C-alpha cells in the first residue's frame, strides 16, 4: 500500500471517530483555587512538551507548581 493510502485511511477513521463521538461545544472553566478545566470539542497543543490532546476533558495547572505541566497534578493543594 502507498503511504498516501495509509494516510487517507487514517484521516477517514479519524473523521468517523469524530462523528461518532459528536463532541459537545467547548467549555472552559476556571476552578477557584484550582486548575483550568477544559471540556468538549477542543484541540490542545503544547509544542514545548510535544503534546497534542483532544481527549475531550483536561485539567490544566494554574498555580505553576505542577510536576506534570501543562496538566494539574494537585500540587496547588500542597
Amino acid at each position, binding site marked *: 500500500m502507498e503511504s498516501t493510502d495509509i494516510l487517507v485511511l487514517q484521516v477517514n477513521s479519524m473523521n468517523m471517530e469524530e462523528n461518532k463521538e459528536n*463532541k459537545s*461545544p*467547548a*467549555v*472552559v*472553566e*476556571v476552578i*477557584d483555587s484550582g486548575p*483550568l478545566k*477544559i471540556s*468538549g*470539542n*477542543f*484541540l*490542545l*497543543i*503544547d*509544542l*514545548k*512538551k510535544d*503534546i497534542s490532546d*483532544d481527549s475531550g476533558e*483536561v485539567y*490544566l*495547572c*494554574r*498555580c*505553576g*507548581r*505542577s510536576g506534570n*505541566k*501543562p496538566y494539574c497534578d494537585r500540587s496547588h493543594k500542597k
Partner: protein
Amino acid sequence: MEKDKSFSGNRKYSNNEITVYWKPSACIHASYCYRELIEVFDPSSRPWVDMNGAPTARIIETVNMCPTEALTWKWNDKEKNNAVGIDQTNHIKFRRPELIEESAQESKENPVSVKIMADGPVVIKGNFTLLYSGNEKKINESLISICRCGASDHMPFCDGKHRHIGFTG
C-alpha cells in the same frame, strides 16, 4: 487636562518603510512577538520596539503573528496600503470587516484551539463558554489568555508576570 485613559499608552514606531502601532490595552501577553523577534520586540527595553533591529519584512511577519489587535502595521506610503491583502495580515477584523461573518461560520464546527505558550500562558481561541468565579461568558471567535504561572495580578488572566518570575513550563 486629564488624558482619556482608554487611549493613553498607545504608541507608534516607524522605520523608513512602515509604522507599527502598539495598543497595550489589547495585549493578552500571548508573547508571539518577542519569541519570534526579540531584536525588535524586547519588553525589557525602553522603548520596547526597535524598528532598526530587523529588516522590514521580518517585522511585518512578526506583527502578523500577533493574535490580537495589540500590534498592527501600515506602510508609510499610503498608496501601498490599498494593496495589502488579507494574506498579508491576520487582522482580518480590522482590515476586511466584510469577511468576518464568513470566517465565523466556517469555524463554528472547528475544535477550540488551546495553545500552551512555552514558559507562558495558555491561549484559548474560538467559540466557547468561559466560566469563572460565578460568571458565564460566551466567547465568540475571540481569544483569551489564562495565567499558568500563578503570579498574575489579573487572575485568571495573564498579565505578563511570568517573565518577571522566570516561569518555565
